[in-house]
C-alpha cells in the first residue's frame, strides 16, 4: 500500500462519522427543527456504544445501543422543543452539555479498556481491482452504511411522498398543519432519526476510529457536522462532499505535522476550525440572495386547538 493510498484510507475513516452525523441533522433541519445538540448525542453514542460492546462482548450490540442512546437523548430534546415549544437554540445547547456530562459518567468505568476494532468487509472480486479496490471495497461496514445513507436520504427527500411531507413541514408548518399533517409527529420522527445517526457516528468513533473510550473524544465533530449541513445547502450529496473535505483537512494537517512543516502543531490543529469559519463565510457570500434553508427552521410550532 502506498502512502497515498494510506492517506486516502484514513481520510475515509475520518470523514465517515462527520458524514453520518451531518446526514441525520440534515433531515432534522429539513423538517424545520434546529438541533444544536449533535455533539452531545454523538458522544453519548460513543460512550454507550463502547460500554455495551465491552460488557456484552458484541460489537453489533454496541452499535445498536449507541443508536438507541442517541435516540433517547434526542427524545429529551423533542419533548422540550415539540412538547413545550421551548427555544431550540437553548435546548440544543442543553443537550450538548447534558450529553457530554452523561458520557463521562457512563464511560468512567471503561477508561483505558482496549478492544479490537470492527473489521473491514471485503467485497469479493471488486476489492481486487488495483488501487480502487482496496479503497472502495475493503472498508468497514460503517463506510458502506454512510454511502447507503446518503443515497437513502436523497431518495427519501426528493422521490418519496413521506419526504415531500417532511419538506413541507419544514417549509411552512402552519400550512402543513392546515392540510391535516401531524407536524409534531413528523418532526419527532425526524429528530429521532437525527439522534440515531448521531449515536451511530459516535459508535464509529469509539468502536472503529480510536477504538477505546476517552472523555470528550468526539472533539467538536458534532459541531462541525452542523457546519457541514449549512455548507451543503441542506442537500445530501453536497453533505458528502463537505464531510470528505473536512475529513481530508483533518488528516492532511496531521500529515503536515509529522512531515515537519515549520509551523507550531497548534496552528495546524486550529486549521480545520478556521477553515470551517472560512467556508461558512464563502458559502453565505456565494448564496447571497439564493436559497437560505428551510423557512420554518428553528421556529417553535404551537398548533391552535
Amino acid at each position, binding site marked *: 500500500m502506498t502512502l497515498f493510498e494510506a492517506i486516502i484510507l484514513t481520510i475515509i475513516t475520518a470523514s465517515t462519522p462527520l458524514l453520518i452525523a451531518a446526514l441525520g441533522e440534515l433531515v432534522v433541519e429539513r423538517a424545520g427543527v434546529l438541533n*444544536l445538540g449533535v455533539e*452531545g448525542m454523538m458522544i453519548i453514542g460513543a460512550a454507550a456504544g463502547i460500554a455495551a460492546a465491552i460488557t456484552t462482548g458484541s460489537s453489533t450490540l454496541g452499535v445498536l445501543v449507541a443508536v438507541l442512546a442517541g435516540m433517547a437523548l434526542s427524545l*429529551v430534546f423533542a419533548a*422540550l422543543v415539540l*412538547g*413545550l*415549544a*421551548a*427555544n431550540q*437554540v*437553548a*435546548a440544543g*445547547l*442543553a*443537550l450538548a*452539555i*447534558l*450529553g*457530554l*456530562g*452523561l*458520557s*463521562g*459518567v457512563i464511560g*468512567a468505568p471503561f477508561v483505558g479498556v482496549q478492544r479490537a476494532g470492527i473489521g473491514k468487509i471485503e467485497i469479493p472480486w471488486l476489492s481486487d481491482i488495483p488501487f480502487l479496490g482496496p479503497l472502495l471495497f475493503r472498508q468497514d461496514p460503517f463506510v458502506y452504511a454512510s454511502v447507503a445513507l446518503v443515497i437513502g436520504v436523497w431518495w427519501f427527500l426528493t422521490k418519496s411522498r413521506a419526504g415531500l411531507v417532511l419538506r413541507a413541514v419544514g417549509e411552512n408548518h402552519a400550512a402543513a398543519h392546515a392540510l391535516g399533517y401531524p407536524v409534531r409527529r413528523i418532526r419527532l420522527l425526524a429528530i429521532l432519526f437525527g439522534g440515531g445517526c448521531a449515536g451511530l457516528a459516535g459508535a464509529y468513533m469509539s468502536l472503529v476510529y480510536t477504538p477505546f473510550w476517552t*472523555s470528550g473524544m468526539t472533539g*467538536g465533530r458534532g*459541531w462541525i457536522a*452542523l*457546519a457541514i449541513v*449549512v455548507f451543503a445547502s441542506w442537500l445530501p450529496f453536497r453533505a458528502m462532499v463537505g464531510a470528505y473535505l473536512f475529513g481530508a483537512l483533518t488528516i492532511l494537517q496531521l500529515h503536515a505535522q509529522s512531515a515537519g512543516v515549520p509551523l*507550531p502543531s*497548534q*496552528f495546524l*490543529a*486550529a486549521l480545520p*476550525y*478556521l477553515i*470551517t*469559519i472560512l467556508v*461558512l*463565510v464563502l458559502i*453565505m*457570500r456565494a448564496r*447571497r440572495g439564493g436559497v437560505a434553508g428551510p423557512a420554518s427552521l428553528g421556529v417553535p410550532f*404551537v398548533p391552535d*386547538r
Partner: protein
Amino acid sequence: MKLVMERRTETPISLMLISPLIAVALTLISAAIMFALLGKDPVAALSTYFLDPLSDSWGLQEVAVKATPLVLIAVGLAVCYRAKVWNIGAEGQFLFGAMAGGYIAIITHGSTQGPWLLPVMLLVGAMAGACFALIPALLRTRFGANEILTSLMLVYVAELLLDYLVRGPWRDPAGFNMPHSVVFEAEATLPLLMAGGRLNIGTPIMIAIVFAFMLLMGRTLKGFEIRLVGEAPRAARFAGFSETRLIITVFMISGALAGLAGVLEAAGTIKQLQPGISPGYGFTAIIVAFLGRLNPIGCLFAGIFIAITFIGGENAQIMLRLPLDATRVLQGLLLFFVLACDSLLLYRFRLLRGAAA
C-alpha cells in the same frame, strides 16, 4: 386525551419568580435518582453537593470565587440572548482576555511598575475579549455567517493558541518544561479581601457590574433597544435602531465581560497562565444566563447556585468517589428544566379529554 397549549396574555409575576425554583427542585430530584443509580446514598450525596460548600468560610469563599467568572460571563451572554444573538463562544473570549491581560503581567515580570499595572491588565483583558467577540459579530453582519458556529469554532482556536503560548514563547523558563507561564508578581495579582482564603476584589467588581447592567437593561434606551431587537426586529428597524450596530454592540459587551472574567481569573485565582485555566466557565455561563432568566440580578443568584454545584462536585468526587462529570449532568439537566419551566410562563397548559377533545 390531548395536551393543549394556550398563549398567555399576561404573565403573572409570581410565576416568573417561581419557575426557576421549580427547575431547581426538579434538578435536585433527578440528582437524587442519579446518585441512587450510581450506588450512593442520595441524601448524603445531596448534602455533600449542595450543603457542605456552604458550611464553612473556606467553602463560602470558594463559592464566591467560582461564581465571579460565571456571573460576569452570564450577564454579558444575557444581553446577547435578549437580543436573540447567539454568542456561545464566551469560553474563547474568556481565554483571550486572560491571555491578553496575562501578557501584560508576563512582559512586566521581574520589574516594579506601580499601581497602574492591575487596572491596565483588566482593561486590556476586557478589550481583548471584546475584540475576539467582534470576529463572529462581523462575520454575521458582513457575510451572514451563522454566529453560533463561528463563535464556537473560535473557542477551539483560542484554546490552541493558549496551549501554544504557554508551551512556547510564554513558558516559564524555570518551570521544568511544564506548560505554564511565570507566576505573576504580587502587584499583578488581585488583592485578597481577607486572609485565609482566595476571595479577592474580583467578586465586588462583579457585583458592581451586575448592578450597572441592571440599570442598563432596565432604564436606558440602549437596554430597550436590545430587548426590542430580540422581540420584534422589524419594529426595531421601524424605531430607527440599526440591527447591524446592535449585533456588534452586544457581541462586544459580552466579549468584554467574558474577557474581564478571564483576566480576573488569571490574575486573581490562578496567578499565572496555563492550559486548564477554565473548567468550561464560558459554557456553564450559558446555563447561568438562562437560569437567571436573562436578567442581571437573576444571573447573580443563578451563578451562585451553579458555583455551589462546582464546589460540591469536587467534594463529592473526593469524598464519595462520584465522577466529576456528574456535575455536568446536573448542570445540563438544570438547563433542560429551566427551559421547560419557561414554557409555563408563555403558555397555559390544559388537558383535554374525551373523543370530542
